[in-house]
């Protein structure tokens, strides 16, 4: 049985439908990411779970109990905000101790627990600092410690790393992952960053325009996209519309607008339909001749350090090709093979 469930939750702000008929379920100890572009309703969904926003319809179920009407302070969830939201008039200790005091913990227990969680987030010795005396990364660690201190039933995080610079973000992502795994705490993690979602979560729910369009493991989301949105939002995808001519097991034959016919794998999450979309990610494209190949001309070369990225013009279709070494030059002609097991067909 799932620990937390949303059942057909809808929230409107005036004419804007922020969240539309969203249903999801999180198991105990599971890390679920809500992934989607900015403005798709991730934060609103999270705030509804936290009790900070009341849904117009639908319900929030926790341990089998309807908590839709329960105020946030009675839910025993921890929340981490994008901008840290630490209380500037309190020390690190008081920030972290706040939730414990609210729950009526004894003095010594509070001191012990605060020490424990500050150790967990590697901030021992910072107890008497004020939030403004800490760096952004340290502030977010305090925010995490504050949310974790009362051992909440569910941890809610709203883009906790997006105010940090790239390097720190990556570092904290790994640390966060190991902390969440070691605590086995049920987590709902909101992000617009697919790499973050992939690295952290057991399950990803992809959102678009207020709806959850697909839920699955990171591999399922990446390899078996349910629709054109997921297919193009995840990965560095190039999508070409076409029509599905025939299906043979897991492979399909698709005809592109230029008349070229290519073989590709049909996504398991998307039932085959005549109107289809061919999704080509760089890993599906390699230099070579023969079956399932296209004639191309190099239109742009980008040197990226560990690899070179070419932009190819292939019989009216734009493709990306990656290579470890510079092998082509701009204007040169080349043939590329499309790997049928890595190119994906989704219905549209």
């Amino acid at each position: 049985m799932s620990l937390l469930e949303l059942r057909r939750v809808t929230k409107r702000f005036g004419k804007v439908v922020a969240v539309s008929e969203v249903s999801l379920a999180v198991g105990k100890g599971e890390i679920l990411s809500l992934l989607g572009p900015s403005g798709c309703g991730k934060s609103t969904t999270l705030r509804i779970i936290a009790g900070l926003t009341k849904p117009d319809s639908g319900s929030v179920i926790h341990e089998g109990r309807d908590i839709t009407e329960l105020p946030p302070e009675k839910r025993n969830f921890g929340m981490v905000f994008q901008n840290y939201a630490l209380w500037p008039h309190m020390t690190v200790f008081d920030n972290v101790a706040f939730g414990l005091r609210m729950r009526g913990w004894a003095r010594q227990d509070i001191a012990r627990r605060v020490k424990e969680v500050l150790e967990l987030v590697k901030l021992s010795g910072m107890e008497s600092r004020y939030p403004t005396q800490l760096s952004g990364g340290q502030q977010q660690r305090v925010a995490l410690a504050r949310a974790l201190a009362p051992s909440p039933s569910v941890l809610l995080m709203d883009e906790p790393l997006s105010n940090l610079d790239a390097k720190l973000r990556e570092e904290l992502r790994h640390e966060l992952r190991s902390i969440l795994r070691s605590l086995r705490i049920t987590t709902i993690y909101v992000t617009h960053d697919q790499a973050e979602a992939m690295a952290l979560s057991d399950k990803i729910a992809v959102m678009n325009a207020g709806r959850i369009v697909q839920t699955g493991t990171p591999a399922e989301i990446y390899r078996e996209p349910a629709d054109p949105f997921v297919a193009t939002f995840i990965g560095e995808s190039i999508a070409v519309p076409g029509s599905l001519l025939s299906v043979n097991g897991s492979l399909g034959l698709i005809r592109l607008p230029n008349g070229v016919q290519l073989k590709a794998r049909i996504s398991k999450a998307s039932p085959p339909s005549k109107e289809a979309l061919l999704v080509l990610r760089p890993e599906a494209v390699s230099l070579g001749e023969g079956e399932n190949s296209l004639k191309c001309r190099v239109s742009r070369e980008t040197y990226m350090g560990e690899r070179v990225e070419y932009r190819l013009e292939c019989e009216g279709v734009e493709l990306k090709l990656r290579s470890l070494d510079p092998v082509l030059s701009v204007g040169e002609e080349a043939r590329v093979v499309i790997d049928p097991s890595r190119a994906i067909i989704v219905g549209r």
Partner: protein
Amino acid sequence: MYTSVRLALKLVVAVVLFLSIVMPLTTLFLWSFAIKWYWPSPIPQELGTDYWLEALGLRRGLAIGAVSVTTALRYSIIIALITVIVTQLISIPASYALARYSVPYKPLLLFLFFMPQVFPLQPVYVNLMRLFYTYDLVGTIPGVVLAHMMPAMVFAIWINTATFKAIPPELEEAARASGAGALTTLLRITLPLAVPGLLASTVFVFLYSFDEFTGTFFIGLPYIQTLPMLLYSASGYNMQFASASAIVLLIISAAFMLLLERFLKAEYLGRIG
């Protein structure tokens, strides 16, 4: 060359400061201690504490038109305190609502609210006086308090709304998510963070009421004699009493300003430092 220009500038600033602040203050100070000061002598011919003692009610008044600074001061302080308390009791919750919630017709409400400030206040007070007569409020402390509250409320709501707006709602939401109810959140998070701003508006309203003249003149007379009223009526015939009242007024106002400044500095430094 350059340094001499600077020196000249400094000199000009010093002279302006002297003429605009030090001179009037010195004159005021001298006048309050002058027993005799006839033109054209640059300093009083006879100095003494007689007028101060009378003004402060420490000696029975013998001089013509003797006034009691202490009585006026008491009126001023009582009226200012009541004005502050009532104004803040109304404006703090109202400002919080204005800062946090979408109030219907907010622009219209704000427009109506600021309307009286657009006109010169005298005609407003004359009309207020006619209105207050029908409710027997003229010449009473509640009447004067109401007259002071009208403009004071505008400033208080203005400052307090800005204060609450400057507190990110996530700070309150984080408290709720941590297990604090709405009231605890208000007492432990919102109000402590709002203290500097609320204190600023409190001192501002207090000083406004304390120094207010026009409204008190129309609504308070003849029974309510505040310090500014006293200053006004005394300055017509007794420079000594007027000077003494002015000095008391000045000292109290300056003390509040200093208090405000120190408190705000400490509070903000504590947060930024």
